[in-house]
């Protein structure tokens, strides 16, 4: 194979790339000793942030463990909301609106009364609540918060909160069959929220989860045997 002719495209490309690397500010920085030290410090800081859960905190709330658990029925001031968690039960029903029972499926339902206190605007329909109430794992276990998989109004239908009106909601979590057995005592945490007013002035609504505002610990009723018995009796 013959050598490429002088000033060939390949030579020009290689020369241009070499020139770009030579002139690059970051490369120049790494040629300095203090530049290499700075880069190493930044890399270590980024890795430490990740390992310490800095990335995790964006997704999951922290500070639940510091809260004192309260019994079911206790009210908590969650900023824009007053929240009362009343009860929880395990069910084979995929939806409280259906009579259908699926023995292979377990859903944890938590009933709560939520009173919206923002006086300036209408609440966004259907968006609220997916991450308002979090499962904080079984009593005594390390918190492993999970956002709800469903939010409904008690009795079915979409949850729409009206100002100053206590509204009963049901939040649900589908429990994995591969996960640990469903606990008999459960902890539930409620997030505090801040909210930029939504008026015609600012059509975009900005919900900002602040920090955990309340923690409840209560017994979970197991309705599954009763549902299965009723299903058999119905056959």
């Amino acid at each position, binding site marked *: 194979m013959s050598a490429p002719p002088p000033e060939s495209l390949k030579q020009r490309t290689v020369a241009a790339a070499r020139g770009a690397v030579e002139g690059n500010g970051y490369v120049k920085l790494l040629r300095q000793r203090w530049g290499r030290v700075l880069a190493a410090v930044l890399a270590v800081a980024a890795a430490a942030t990740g390992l310490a859960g800095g990335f995790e905190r964006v997704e999951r709330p922290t500070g639940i463990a510091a809260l004192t658990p309260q019994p079911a029925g206790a009210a908590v001031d969650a900023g824009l909301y007053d929240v009362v968690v009343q009860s929880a039960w395990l069910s084979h029903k995929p939806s409280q609106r259906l009579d259908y029972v699926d023995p292979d499926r377990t859903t944890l339902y938590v009933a709560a009364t939520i009173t919206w206190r923002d006086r300036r605007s209408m609440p966004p329909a259907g968006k609220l609540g997916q991450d308002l109430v979090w499962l904080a794992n079984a009593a005594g276990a390390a918190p492993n918060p999970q956002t709800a998989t469903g939010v409904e109004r008690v009795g079915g*239908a979409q949850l729409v909160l*009206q100002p100053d009106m206590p509204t009963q909601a049901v939040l649900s979590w589908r429990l994995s069959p591969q996960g640990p057995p469903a606990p008999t005592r459960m902890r539930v945490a409620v997030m505090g929220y801040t909210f930029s007013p939504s008026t*015609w002035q600012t059509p975009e609504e900005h919900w900002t989860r602040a920090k955990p505002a309340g923690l409840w610990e209560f017994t979970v009723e197991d309705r599954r045997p009763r549902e299965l018995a009723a299903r058999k009796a119905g056959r």
Partner: protein
Amino acid sequence: MNAAAAHPSPRRWRRFAFNAVVLLLAASAMFWLRRHEPSYMERFAPIVVRGAPGEVVQARGLRIEIPADSALATGRTLVTPGITGSAPPDEQPSSGLWLSVPVRIEVTLDSDRFKAFLRDRAGREYAPAPKSPAEPGRPFDHGGEGGRMFESNIAGQSLAPGFPASGRLYFEVPADRLEGLHARFHLGAVMTPNDSLVDIDLGIDRHRAVALREAATPKLRTFVTQGGVL
């Protein structure tokens, strides 16, 4: 350097003073204008078009009437169609009251959805119950009642010019805030600045509020069933 250059003449002083005064006046004028310019609210506020029950209220792209002959109705629990034709209807008990408001609405320019809400005297706003996804005429067979089901709730319904919609809106309001309620409507999911906002005083005075509270039915249904085949 001569003496004239070292000591500015009175004429130059006068020019300097004149320029300084003009500059100060201009700055003052700018400051005054900045202080007195219309606020964001004043520049982009919606144009409120007021009306009363029985009047046809004409706004930009929207024509609305709350018929005077159709009465407001109240209930303590809202009953909406179930998830299927044979599922039990959903019952939504309220800590206040459900207020049913009759509405006749038409878009006059483009096809669009509309948004409605109630506003009380304290400025609190109440969203209507969302329309159930049940399609008109869905077979209904539950609790000994059969036929085809028709939903009266028109919240968020898509409208087309030339096809006025008639129905009702169902609002959940505190029982002690019925007095002085206004129904408000606008086109689109979000209020557009400078667009029309229809405001209709429902005409609920103290006596009527008491009457509505006393007349509240235990269950307020959003749908009717009609027998027979369509």
